[in-house]
């Protein structure tokens, strides 16, 4: 039984979380003992606006199958307007990835506040499932980084 379970594809998810809202939201989901998949690796950033398009691409290069970016809700940014810029930037980047034929469900932006531990866990569960359905990232992977 154990063997079969291991054979199922387990996607690697990278989640960029802003320090002030989403990272605290992740913390809250932990202290509330809510489950979210261990496939999700969180990278804390000061603000969602810190995330350069290169970060997203590099995550895919180094083996991520899905990348999610979490920040404060629009209007609640610790730095007033950082997430508004993020929103435009990521919209354009995701649109470009789609234009190049990269599966659009591999990327997502979600606004999670410090009080939304439950939303964080639910989002991660849902996103992991969506990426799992797509299978391993092949279109934007660096073959050299693939584990044999």
């Amino acid at each position, binding site marked *: 039984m154990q063997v079969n379970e291991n054979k199922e594809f387990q996607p690697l998810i990278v989640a960029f979380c802003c320090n002030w809202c989403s990272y605290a939201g992740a913390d809250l989901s932990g202290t509330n003992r809510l489950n979210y998949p261990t496939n999700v690796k969180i990278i804390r950033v000061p603000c969602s606006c810190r995330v350069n398009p*290169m970060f997203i*691409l590099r995550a895919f290069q180094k083996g991520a199958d899905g990348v999610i970016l979490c920040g404060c809700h629009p209007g609640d940014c610790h730095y007033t307007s950082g997430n508004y810029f993020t*929103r*435009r930037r990521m919209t354009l980047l995701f649109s*470009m990835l789609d234009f*190049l*034929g*990269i599966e*659009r469900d591999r990327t997502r932006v979600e606004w999670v506040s410090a009080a939304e531990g439950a939303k964080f866990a639910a989002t991660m569960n849902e996103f992991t499932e969506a990426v799992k359905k797509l299978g391993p990232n092949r279109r*934007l992977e660096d073959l050299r980084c693939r584990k044999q």
Partner: protein
Amino acid sequence: MQEAIISKAKQLLADGTVNRVIGWKKGEFAYDITPAIFESAEEIDADFVYDDFTSANVSKYLVKESKKEGKILAFLKPCDTYSLNQLTKEHRVNRENIYVVGIPSDGKLDAEKIKAKGITGITGVEKDGDTLKINTIYGEETMPVAEAMSNKCLSCKSRKHVTYDELIGEDGEVITSDRFDMVEKLENMTSQERYDFWRNELSKCIRCNACRNVCPACTCENCVFNNPDSGVENKAAADSFEENMFHIIRAFHVAGRCTDCGECSRVCPQNIPLHLLNRKFIKDINSLYGEYQAGADTTSKAPLNDYTQDDCEASIVHERGVE
């Protein structure tokens, strides 16, 4: 036209308005024209040329040239003025040191397109109405002018000079073009078809960096792809991922600043339609954040340096177009 430009250049040099001129220099053949700086009437008489092959956009050279002593005269085609305006807006050029003379352009020719017809040994090219007469060592050949027209001119967006100190000829208007047609065609393909299309195109890339180095919007002192400390520095794509990354980041870095001058595709030795990546961003910006033409003015906020509280969410990408 060439005579008018040459006499204007000589006049402005003679009366001391400028101390040098940036323009185009004759080559070995009819088509191999090099951007050059001229400092005297003699040099201009000897080599200055303005003809069907002077497609190079000289705006980017003004970043360096406008920081030098004295004023420089630049002859700019309509599309080139957008580039200069954008550079002025970004404080990359010292506009006061540039004397711009706007010159008309009825579209430039692309020697590669002539050669692609199997025409070789080209010694001279002449326009005769809608027909192009090409002298070769194998005899005279003809082809329709439209078929030899440079791609960037075929989808010309404007015949208007957005910045100039003086004009030669009449100013034109912003025109409607079909420049987004190919982007739209790709958008309507399936994701697999788009993937295959771009893999075929981008796998040709030899990472010569010509697209980046010619781009008037790419003016970083040190590019992230040249910086060994950036972690992404590479001189050649060792994997298809690196081909994708370079071209996504190149286009992204000029998103909202690209004036769509088309130089990237013109210089690509592998004929990759790189302008489509830039146009995709322009089309998205236009449709999501309102019509915006980079370089049209020097005061408006760039779309990526701006926001509104009710911008669409990134999930809009999931909601439109073809999967």
